[in-house]
């Protein structure tokens, strides 16, 4: 293989996770996790409750370190740079890698102020620029039409699904490259869930998405790759249709056929 081809393949890989282990105090929550995540793909993380899905994606933007008892070993390369290196600033990492949580968590501020929170803290002051960013981000999050007349109303007045899309817009407003989503639809009704799934379809043109879900149909509908976690280990990681049609591991098969979890 020529070095140019090699480089191209390399830049296609956003995350390269290598032998990642993580402990909460003495309890190990991730064991030797090793996987690559490709650009502009949707990667789904599935597995029973407590298997380490949230822990894993919170490690990708180092949010997990906000819990004081956490220790890690192993490496995570983000575009070839080890994110645990001293030279990596978590603020930069988290600007590039946004996160959407299980429960919608808008700030108790207006819709507009929620969206421009990120741009503002990154130093943008011009009202006009902020308004533009708000409009673009809300459009990308498929929320603009529903909120354009109430931009200055409190975000707590929106429905759960709208709040979640607002949280997505808030992340998109800082132009991230990766969006991490931790069961973003588990607190939502089916219609809101479908809207978010459609949105994810749109977003993957521009962003790399890693989504935790314990809804297997959802994983099947939206993702290219699926990783099956069990007790902190990656049991199987493959193209989604392979995982769902011909799983290689008995435990994966048991899980996707609903025998446990």
């Amino acid at each position: 293989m020529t070095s140019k081809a090699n480089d191209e393949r390399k830049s296609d890989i956003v995350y390269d996770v290598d032998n990642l282990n993580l402990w909460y105090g003495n309890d190990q929550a991730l064991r030797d996790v090793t996987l690559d995540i490709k650009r502009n793909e949707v990667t789904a993380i599935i597995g029973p409750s407590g298997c380490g899905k949230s822990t894993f994606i919170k490690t990708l933007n180092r949010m997990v370190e906000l819990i004081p008892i956490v220790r890690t070993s192993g490496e995570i390369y983000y575009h070839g740079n080890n994110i645990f290196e001293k030279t990596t600033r978590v603020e930069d990492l988290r600007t590039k890698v946004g996160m959407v949580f299980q429960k919608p968590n808008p700030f108790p501020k207006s819709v507009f102020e929620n969206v421009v929170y990120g741009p503002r803290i990154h130093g943008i002051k011009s009202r006009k620029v902020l308004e533009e960013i708000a409009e673009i981000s809300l459009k990308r999050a498929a929320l603009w039409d529903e909120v354009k007349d109430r931009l200055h109303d409190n975000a707590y007045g929106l429905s759960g699904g709208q709040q979640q899309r607002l949280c997505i817009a808030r992340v998109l407003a800082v132009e991230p490259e990766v969006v991490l989503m931790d069961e973003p639809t588990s607190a939502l009704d089916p219609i809101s869930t479908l809207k978010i799934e459609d949105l994810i379809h749109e977003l993957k043109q521009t962003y790399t998405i890693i989504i935790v879900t314990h809804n297997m149909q959802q994983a099947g509908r939206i993702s290219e790759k699926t990783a099956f976690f069990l007790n902190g280990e990656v049991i199987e990681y493959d193209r989604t249709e392979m995982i769902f049609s011909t799983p290689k591991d008995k435990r994966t098969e048991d899980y996707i056929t609903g025998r446990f979890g």
Partner: protein
Amino acid sequence: MANGSGSGKYEKLAIEAPSFQKRTKRRILLDKVAGKLFSLSIFFALAVLCILLYQIVSKSIGWLDFKFLTGNLSMDPYKAGIRGVIIGSVLLMVVVIPVTLLLGVSTAIYLEEYAGKSRLRSIINTNISNLASVPSVIFGLLGLTVFGRLFNLGSSILAGGLTLSLLVLPIVVVASQEAIRAVPGFLRDASYAIGATKWTTVKKVVLPASLPGILTGSILAMSRAIGETAPLVVLGIPTLILRIPNGLLDDFTALPIQIYYWTLDTVLTAEYANLAAATIVVLLVLLFLMNSAAIIIRNKFQKRY
């Protein structure tokens, strides 16, 4: 008796059912009596309060007028006014408010957001709670030693204000800590997750969300400071100040201390009792206003998450 344990439990229950009913009746009766007793004790406290209020207000009638509020202090009770005293109290607050807010809120932010779960933090926390229960005379002695003598501030407004600041600082710290702790973690997470630093998160998420709680606690602390007498007495605030203070280094007198001195001097001049009563009414109205403000803020910004 109805202590049915083990196998014969159900039989026993059936047999003793009527006596259970009797006992229930007795319990209900007891409940009613207890309720009455408790309301009686509230009634008693309220009655004493009313008598006090009545005495004070009736003594102040005819004395508390515009001339009293705007006049200068005087030995002659018929000429005395409390303009200087009110100004003294206001200037005290000019020292206490910024000092306690600045120190108190930063301490709370440090302890809640930066200190982690270290042993040092728990030691500091315990000591702050202990400080809150130290008698105010002790703070007066501290103020006298440190601000009055060491810093040579004497019995100036600055010395008094700093002493009162120390006194209410623990209250402000604890109230601010509680308000900060009540800000849900998911709001902080939202901020961190888009690349905010800790300070940005504190400034733009934590403080705005905890501000109502901090304000409520601080206003209550200020109303404590404005009514404190003992530390000022210890500092040696002069009995009679005929000059109106116009700087923080001037000597002064304040509402509670003026009440105290006038009350002491009623043996010399009986009318001083009326002056004291009128000043008490002024102080009470002030406290009432401050506490109402605290309640209004608390109700207006009640939990929104």
